[in-house]
């Protein structure tokens, strides 16, 4: 019955209730949103890492190299010579080396020269067709297939550069030989082809596109430092963009980059380290938002405190009636506590809904930029938001509850 009295007092005083619930709603939605986005970003980034210990690429910004080679979010830092990279790829320390050669784009999606290992690494299974075996064969990621309607047997022309209206390599059509099923990572947004395709499209024609900032065509013919490596002497120097390395021992993760960084024009980067750094930088913004959420929650609990105290003051005779009717002091103490709990619960539920609405908006507006879709499902640690909200509200109710418990029944009844 005390719960019903509390509920009635919450629902029959809409203005105060709306104010309190609104504040809690804003506080919890910001906190929930942060939790969701942070956690899923980290998860997503960890997933796409797929066990890559090192990324080998051209010198430049290490973060850029990781973002481009592992997450396909940024332009590459430039190309490296396969000949220069080869000794490290064949090193006994290396368990697996997957070359990446960035070539063209199709409908805004990257055509990535690599090996079939890339498919396995990212957990790709073919929905139809087969894996590429010959140059100019291409396997299409799930999202690409869905967006462009490509199917096995189709041919497509790669465009040079990231935009759709860039040069089209009309003389080098790719043939779709397979479609990859949904993998939930970078694979979905790529078209995979053997590295040799990229060489075939670009190597035989000495393009001078002048888009060096894209780094995809930083060809420097005749600049070979390892002329003894002449496996393909009839072609210009074979270049790749980056290599994803998985090592046998975690210890070499620290030693190998030092060797490479000191002795070559390439750099080897620990992607995990770079991503931590990125999250550290993002963390400054998150902290500000977290403070904002906390501040709103604080204001919410102050408003609950004032609303309850006010109510206990003006409703003394109701408290007296409850006492006379047979309710104990402890039950009177519970009344404002339950009221606060109800307000917190309402605010939390609305906050949860609002955070989902905001997330939906983020997904709607920014999916293309972030290449991330955030899940809207309830995350386990959101229970801490609930507990924290209720704890704050109950704390705000303690003093009003103490006052309610101590109400002078005789004085209240005389009025």
């Amino acid at each position, binding site marked *: *019955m005390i719960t019903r*009295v509390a509920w009635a007092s919450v629902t029959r005083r809409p203005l105060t209730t709306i104010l309190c619930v609104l504040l809690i709603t804003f506080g919890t939605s910001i906190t929930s949103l942060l939790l969701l986005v942070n956690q899923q970003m980290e998860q997503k980034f960890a997933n796409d890492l797929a066990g890559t210990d090192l990324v080998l690429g051209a010198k430049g910004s290490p973060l850029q190299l990781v973002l481009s080679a592992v997450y396909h979010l940024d332009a590459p830092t430039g190309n490296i010579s396969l000949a220069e990279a080869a000794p490290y790829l064949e090193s006994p320390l290396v368990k697996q080396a997957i070359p990446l050669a960035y070539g063209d784009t199709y409908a805004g999606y990257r055509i990535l020269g690599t090996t079939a290992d890339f498919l396995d690494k990212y957990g790709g299974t073919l929905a139809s067709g087969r894996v590429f075996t010959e140059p100019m064969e291409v396997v299409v990621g799930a999202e690409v297939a869905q967006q462009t309607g490509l199917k096995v047997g189709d041919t497509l022309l790669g465009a040079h550069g990231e935009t759709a209206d860039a040069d089209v390599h009309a003389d080098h059509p790719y043939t779709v030989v397979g479609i990859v099923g949904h993998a939930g990572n970078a694979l979905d947004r790529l078209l995979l082809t053997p590295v040799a395709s990229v060489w075939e499209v670009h190597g035989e024609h000495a393009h001078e596109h002048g888009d060096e900032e894209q780094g995809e065509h930083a060809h420097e013919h005749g600049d070979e430092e390892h002329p003894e490596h002449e496996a393909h002497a009839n072609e210009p120097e074979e270049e790749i963009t980056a290599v994803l390395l998985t090592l046998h021992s975690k210890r070499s993760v620290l030693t190998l980059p030092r060797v490479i960084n000191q002795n070559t024009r390439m750099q080897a980067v620990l992607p995990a380290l770079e991503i931590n750094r990125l999250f550290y930088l993002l963390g400054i913004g998150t902290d500000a938002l977290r403070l904002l959420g906390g501040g709103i929650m604080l204001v919410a609990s102050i408003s609950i405190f004032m609303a309850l105290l006010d109510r206990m003051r003006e409703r003394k005779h*109701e408290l007296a*009636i409850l006492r006379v*009717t047979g309710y104990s*002091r402890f039950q009177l103490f519970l009344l404002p506590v339950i009221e606060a709990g109800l307000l917190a619960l309402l605010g939390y539920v609305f906050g949860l809904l609002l955070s989902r609405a905001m997330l939906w908006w983020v997904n709607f507006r920014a999916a293309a930029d972030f290449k991330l879709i955030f899940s809207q499902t309830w995350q386990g640690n959101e229970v801490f938001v609930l507990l924290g909200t209720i704890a704050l509200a109950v704390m705000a109710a303690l003093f009003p509850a103490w006052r309610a418990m101590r109400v002078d029944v005789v004085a209240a*009844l005389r009025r």
Partner: protein
Amino acid sequence: MSNTIPSAVLSASQLSYQYRGGTLLSFPDLHLDPGEVLLVLGPSGCGKTTLLHLLAGLLPPRTGSIALAGQSYNYTQPAVLDQIRGRNLGIVYQQPHFIDTLTAWQNLRLSPFAQSKEELLELAQQIGIAHLLKKYPQEMSAGELQRLGIARALAHRPGLILADEPTSALDRRHCLAVLERLQTHARQYNAALLIVTHDDRLMTAIPQQITLDYQPAAAQNQQV
């Protein structure tokens, strides 16, 4: 006199009370059996309301003892006292207060010891408020609230009904109607009825009455 007679609903002996800095109020011994009606008369300031609060266990007396339905008041165990009061006592106030955020029906069912829904509905019909049960107190007239107040005092079938000036704000016709209603329902539930009032009009209606002495010193601490 400190021994309680088992059949008595209420017995109070050698009660006295002193407000802080005020003079001592002493009260005559009281003994009420089920179904009995007692009028406690006295001018304003003689301590009538104080007596009512003492009998309800809301104030601890300076001296004396009270037993309600065979259970003595022990002021060191307030939770037990809350139970005794909640179970056995119904109070009709001069100005009835209700929980404003609850409907009349919810107010009627407020008591933890309230009767079943069916019995309460029957009670509401007898008192003539069955059609008002969905209303909130602020939507009801003074007369309707008065009736709701009586219904609430009876909702848990108390052994004793204490009525504090139930008629003093009413004209003669309504005064007698309210008195009639109180007596009828008290009789029906076999509850003892103790009416505390300065309303002389009730003197002729209720034979059993006591008058509290007017104590000039107490007038300085008027408590009505």
